[in-house]
């Protein structure tokens, strides 16, 4: 991975990890204060039976991001950030899947399929924190691509040196 990508990863995932950690802790605070009913704050929603579980996952993901920032150019550290990102993708992916599953059927008394307006309304906010974190976690692609590019260049140089030895 290039030095720029390593430096970017170190700073970016340091800040992002702290934010993920804060969201996870907030989940526990809301759970303790309001129970599973939770709260909605603008486009952000913290509620549901599974809140305790996604809070645990976000706290762990935040901690893993923070543990990866030292020597970010090392493949092991990059893998830690990737593992944390996958954890966020799972939580966010399942929140999106829940919306998709809920948007298709028309309800007990309604038609077989949701009419277009209700279908679209299912995707309106508020959203759980993982959905807001999802696009920012995709930044992991940059250091991964940088590493892949450099590994490919190294291999080409080795092959060239081998051919001309």
């Amino acid at each position, binding site marked *: 991975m290039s030095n720029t990508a390593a430096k970017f990863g170190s700073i970016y995932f340091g800040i992002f990890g702290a934010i993920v950690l804060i969201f996870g802790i907030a989940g526990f605070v809301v759970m303790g204060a309001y129970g599973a009913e939770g709260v909605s704050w603008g486009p952000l929603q913290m509620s549901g039976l599974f809140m305790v579980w996604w809070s645990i996952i976000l706290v762990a993901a935040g901690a*893993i991001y923070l543990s990866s920032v030292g020597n970010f150019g090392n493949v*092991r550290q990059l893998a830690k950030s990737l593992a944390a990102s996958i954890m966020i993708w799972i939580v966010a992916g399942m929140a999106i899947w829940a919306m998709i599953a809920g948007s298709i*059927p028309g309800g*007990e008394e309604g038609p077989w399929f949701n009419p277009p307006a209700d279908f679209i309304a299912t995707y309106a906010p508020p959203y759980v924190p993982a959905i807001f974190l999802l696009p920012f976690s995709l930044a992991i692609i940059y250091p991964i691509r940088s590493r892949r590019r450099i590994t490919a260049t190294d291999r080409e140089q080795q092959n060239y040196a081998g051919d001309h030895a």
Partner: protein
Amino acid sequence: MELSTDQRWDLVERISKQTVEVGKYKATLKDALADLTVRPAIGIPFAIAVIYGFWTFFCEFAGTLFTDGFFVKIFDGYWLPWLQNVFAGAPTWVFNVFVGDPLATNCFEAFGVLSSGLFLAIGVVLPAIVAFYLIFAILEDVGYMPRLAVLVDGLLHKIGLHGYAVVPTMLSLGCNVPGVTACRPLDTRKQRFLAIALLSVFVPCGAQIGIMQGMIPGLIGWVFLALVIGYFAVGWVLNKIVPGESPEILMDVPPYQAPTARNVWTKLWTRVWRFLKVAVPFVLLGCLIVNVLYMTGAMDAIASALSPVITGVFGLPEETASAMVAGFLRKDLAVGTIGMLAAGGMTITLFQVFTAVVLLSIYFPCLATFALMIKELNWKQTLGALATLIVVVFVFGAILHLIGSSGIGSSAWVPLE
């Protein structure tokens, strides 16, 4: 030409020098991720995330999308009225057995073989099984399941099992039948006995989970907690008292790879087809036998005979005896029976429902699993598993009754539609 041993080794060395290239290995990102996911510090939270994803997908796919979204509508709106119409002229006993309660407006309450039986098997259980085995096949194909086995190896060794036992245990969350079969690679008779006894007692099948998810979504986490505690506590005791060895097993841990659609489809279809062939007839048969027991009055006799245990030891309403009997045939059917009884006017508290569901999970493997246990173990070991089970049920039931006596969860339970 005959070579001596030394000459053979010399030849091997010469060939390997010419063919094997030795260099410094540089770990790839995939290697590093594979290594991290078997180390507890990152592997355990990662496993929690994977299981969270597994569970959420399961609930939304089976519950929200298929069962609530379409199957309830098909069975209640079309299938039940059609059955009631077709069987209208049939003798009363035929109607009661196959269609159930003539006044029922939904398949959950009708309790006929072709109404409730088919609704449970196809409308509730099948989507749950498909969702479960789809994700399981993907995790196997990606290469995550062997890593989960490595991750829990230390923990499972405390109860005399190898980490591989996590595979049959997870499989059993779909259906206990393939779970019992998957215990074959375990090395010793002791390990096979421990794994089969524990999973048949403490691991609820997908069918049962599907029903629990529909009936008691708020309590399901507590039910699982009670079962996990029981799994490890009883496993620890069995490991101490059952003679035999629990050796290590070498297991191949493949690299992570993208799942292939063909592999996933083949595994999914094989397992779902097996479920349709083995389990669905048992659901229907179970419904039929329970209905016949009710009609002949045998269920009342059994309930009276069991009532001292049901009410005295377990603290459950006397009427739940019928559900317990139904549990001998299919556990999912038994959990559903409790819902039907409550919908029919039985008074039962939240904690009693929790107790009943936990006891139903552990008190007897379903008939299909029991038949396979006899085949995989032997009579002596199967009787040993049953003896374990009887002790566990009484101890668990008495402990739960004691906890319930403190007044916890004393509000009346109203079943969800």
